[in-house]
């Protein structure tokens, strides 16, 4: 087990290295931040000086080498647009995104599993069919469209919830959290729902499929024959067996939610990491883009590691390294 974790961490270091090279090269291919951010008033001399001062005129491999040297000491560079260390910018915005992603996951699980269960237990019923139809909507409507619809209905027309922004925060160990205030929760509902939709649909369908399969299994038939109540059949036998794949998927999707809540954060003006990424991409703020993606790679690696460990613990058929 220990060797497995260590080996995985070693491979991850390689992945981080490759990611940083890819992003560096990619951003270089797109263009130059000075072109975008330079004052319209600047003359050729100033443009050349600015490019030189930021080291952007050096060959790509040299720029990367400088980056690597400071990265190994923990310095991931300073944002061009804000003159603040890239890591500081990311960490500043992380609580907001985590809040949003976790709330979205909670919504998806709390609504998804019961609804999927219902659809699986009564597939031909009116409720079952409409749940399935609704779940299709969840991943076929583009996020930006649903977001604006939610704002239009709940904010503009009904006036129940605020349209954009994050609510009042309360500091817990120095981290500003907004779900601890009533105002914060009101601001959290719409964006979290928007973000949760895809995962919600996925969970409903997975749960339904798993339920239908489980109900056909012998152990359910025996349980019924034994006289166990339907309620307990569902709760004890069906639910436990379908939870494994469901939770695995939910865990894996959490990574995507955290990394790519970009569109939701833009529509709802939520000050999170996703918005930071898109803003940085728009001005080619390379230090922030690189730092962000390295953080995300780490995140995915950790999540995948935990999921793999969880999987082996729960399903004895799968061995850790998948070797024969």
């Amino acid at each position, binding site marked *: 087990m220990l060797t497995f974790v260590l080996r995985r961490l070693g491979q991850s270091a390689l992945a981080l290295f490759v990611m940083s090279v890819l992003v560096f090269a990619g951003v270089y291919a797109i263009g130059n931040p000075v072109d975008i951010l330079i*004052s319209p008033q600047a003359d050729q*001399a100033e443009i050349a000086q600015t490019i030189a001062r930021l080291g952007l005129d050096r060959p790509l491999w040299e720029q990367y080498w400088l980056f690597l040297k400071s990265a190994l000491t923990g310095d991931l560079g300073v944002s061009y647009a804000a003159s603040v260390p890239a890591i500081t910018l990311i960490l500043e915005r992380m609580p907001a995104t985590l809040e949003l992603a976790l709330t979205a996951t909670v919504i998806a699980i709390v609504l998804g599993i019961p609804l999927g269960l219902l659809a699986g237990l009564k597939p031909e019923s009116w409720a079952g069919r409409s749940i399935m139809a609704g779940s299709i909507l969840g991943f076929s409507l583009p996020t930006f469209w649903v977001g604006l619809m939610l704002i239009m209905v709940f904010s503009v027309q009904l006036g*129940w919830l605020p*349209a954009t*922004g994050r609510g009042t925060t309360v500091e817990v160990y120095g981290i500003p959290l907004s779900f601890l205030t009533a105002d914060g929760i009101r601001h959290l509902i719409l964006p979290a729902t928007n973000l949760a939709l895809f995962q919600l649909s996925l969970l409903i369908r997975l749960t339904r499929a798993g339920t239908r399969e489980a109900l056909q299994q012998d152990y359910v038939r025996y349980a019924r024959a034994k006289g166990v109540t339907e309620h307990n059949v569902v709760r004890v036998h069906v639910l436990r067996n379908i939870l494994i794949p469901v939770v695995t998927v939910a865990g894996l999707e959490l990574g995507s939610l955290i990394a790519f809540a970009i569109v939701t954060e833009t529509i709802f003006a939520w000050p999170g990491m996703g918005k930071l990424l898109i803003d940085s*991409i728009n001005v080619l703020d390379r230090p922030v883009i690189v730092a962000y993606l390295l953080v995300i790679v780490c995140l995915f690696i950790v999540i995948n590691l935990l999921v793999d460990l969880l999987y082996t613990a729960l399903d004895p058929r799968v061995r850790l390294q998948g070797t024969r």
Partner: protein
Amino acid sequence: MSILKFQRILRRGAVLLCITPFFQAAITSAAELRIGLSGEVTSLDPHYLAAQPNLTVARHVFESLTDVDPQTRLIPGLAESWRVLDAKTWEFTLRRGVIFHDGTPLTAEDVAFSLQRPLSIKGSPGGFASYVRAIATTTVVDKRTLRIKTKYPYGALPEELNSILIVSKRAALKAGPEDFDSGRAMIGTGPYKFVNYRRGDRLVLERHDGWWGPRPAWERVTLRVVTSDPSRTAALLAGDLDAIEHVPSADIKNLKQNKKLRVMQTTSWRTILLHLDQYRAQPPGITDHTGKPLPHNPFLDLRVRKALSKAIHREAIAARVMEGLAVPAANIVSPGVFGHNTELKPEAYDPEGAKRLLAEAGYPKGFRVTLAGPNNRYINDEQVLQTVAQLLTRVGIVTRVEAAPMSAFIGRARNGDTAFSLLGWGSFAADLALRSLVATPTAEKGWGTWNWGHYSNLKVDALMEQAFASVDRPKREALAREANTLAMNDLAIIPLHHQVVSWAMRANLDYTPRTDEFTFAHHFTPH
């Protein structure tokens, strides 16, 4: 937990959610103003990055020596007057009784420090050094007098000084951008004081009672950034914001008809224009209908340029594509701006005339071009590109559109990868605009940095030289106007339209719309 119990909890929760809003109505006191801004603020340091969103928020807390009125005319700011001692020496006299937010008075020392500071900021991709590059020395004569010597006679000095905000020397002496973001160095002379800042979200300010100007109406101001256009409009409609800037064109009509809201508009300084490659024999993207490059560059012929201009239906673009947010242009700067020539009229839509000119120039069947431009920078830029392409195709110039986000487009355009591109330019002086867009590219002088077409007209260059050297303002304006007219008649660039800038607010608010597109809380008044 059973499904039934779960459903019960769901129902109860839904009811709770519905009741809560009634207990928490939009609690905003009459003296508070919440404004929705459209651009991302990257830093509160007024000398770090010359970006409009940064300057918008900075100008609530800081001010500059010279100010600009809503029609872009230069007016006194922190300097109540200035005079020219000789061709290279200017003397600025500061206003009396101006105090910083920490109670200390403004002195010429602070001004001298602030004019120096931009040069000391090293890591910025877009600093303010260019605005002070003409300055040779700054001498503090006394507490209220400052003498500036320029390296060469430079009539545009007061305009350039408008962009340098004055900070408190005591507070900003060793300050970097982080000190401004945290508020420590945010000591200015402006109408509002820093309260707190949540990056990417909002800046909260409160009134500076010691401000020298007319008392602002708002005790507390919240500047919130909502970059998505429809979301910003929705937030205004929902009552989350009291005013927004840059109303999306699609919503203008609706908001104007809404009795609870008011829309204020004016012609913006931003002029949308087309650059044409006028220096290469075979520019990229220009071919005949079979795809072969043409023997000569068609854009070098004035008749072809005029044909292109005639083929564009500016009124239709303004009415249909821009939904009224554009004014057809004939000048390189907007109406009311220094050097604008009211005699120049926008080219009338004349597709037949265009075809005739093309035939005369030797292109009876037209040719093919690629039109490049950004798709996320100007109002409806992508749609404007497509409409221009459509209109040109009708007269035989089959146009392909290449629209990309600004980040990808601008590098290519600067490198000369495009022969025909769209650009927007805002300036409050025609000679400054011409210097960047139309002057013969000369690296030593710093001219023509944005002259992507490499247009070169020595007569225009000469007029610009004279204009800059004139410290006599009316003389400078006449020269600037002449240079503008000459360049426009020669179609150095093809002007499309001047954008119209708009603000939407609650009906009980009023705002004097500004040509320079700035949104200032202290200029909002109760109606």
